[in-house]
């Protein structure tokens, strides 16, 4: 019998700009 590949779960990713925004707000929050 043929082996069917396991279905993969799509990992949602923020866009590069969203990542930058998150990173900036994290930096602002930290003292």
């Amino acid at each position, binding site marked *: 019998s043929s082996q069917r590949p396991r279905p*993969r*779960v*799509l*990992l949602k*990713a*923020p866009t*590069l700009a969203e990542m930058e925004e998150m990173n900036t707000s994290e930096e602002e929050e930290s003292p």
Partner: protein
Amino acid sequence: RQVTVQRKEKDFQGMLEYHKEDEALLIRNLVTELKPQMLSGTVPCLPAYILYMCIRHADYTNDDVKVHSLLTSTINGIKKVLKKHNDDFEMTSFWLSNTCRLLHCLKQYSGDEGFMTQNTAKQNEHCLKNFDLTEYRQVLSDLSIQIYQQLIKIAEGVLQPMIVSAMLENESIQGLSGVKPTGYRKRSSSMADGDNSYCLEAIIRQMNSFHTVLCDQGLDPEIIMQVFKQLFYMINAVTLNNLLLRKDVCSWSTGMQLRYNISQLEEWLRGRNLHQSGAVQTMEPLIQAAQLLQLKKKTQEDAEAICSLCTSLSTQQIVKILNLYTPLNEFEERVTVAFIRTIQAQLQERNDPQQLLLDSKHMFPVLFPFNPSSLTMDSIHIPACLNLEFLNEV
């Protein structure tokens, strides 16, 4: 007293395990604090392979939070290092190579058949099992574009101050200075007079240096070609724009020197195996301008020859060069108004762009064609200098 337990080494399956609390240390040692020189003599793009092996282990243990976290920290780490070294060609090209390699790995080991055609059976065993990272591939592709743009900006910044003197002012053909237009002879052609003059050799040396760095760091050959096509376009645009604005360089002798310089650049491309890059084609307007300076500009036949030759120059540019053209001496005549009118009449049906100058800041869109690696993950050795002993080989 410590007892050393001899354990049988298990086969390394090409995965690297780490504790979540070590992620920051991993990014620090492998990304933000890493100096490219530390990795000389190792396999090119080693950080990308190590990062993929870490991602693979997180995928293998079905830990989506760990995959998200590692990829986000990696991307932010790369952005941080690029910001800090925004005028460092070597550092920028190092992270362009590694970001592209990580992107290729996420494709090559994605499990998508379209990306697996060149994989060995062993490489197929190293594919991701649980997660589809297509969206992260898009982020890495966007990041690669940003890094490429930074790399071009740095290289252009280095080359730009050399272009005018190397391409238009420096006289490497012996005896040519004697036939410069009278009244425009350069004050001094000496290289030691403290002004910012460069010879073509300086541009070639600089491009050799760029090319060596890009090759040593394992940047994909297709991307290297795009880098040099872009740089050659800039050399063309800056040189032509200066020619179009300066009467003193619109002469037969500059045309001859310019053609010689361009042929040296073409030869350099051939020597570095970059002649298929499209770089020479970007120089076509400048090649034609050099020929225009050298052609006869008197009869109806001369006008026809100019019109059929100068297809990459606009009517406005041709007319401007003819207007600026400066005779070498009293025996050579100026280009007559009647001759320029003949040219204009012959070219009036052309639908040329209106602007005189080229956009020297124009950038060709960059492409990152998929380039799978023949390396297998289990053959990769992590050098001690990286201080990554907290990574466990699985």
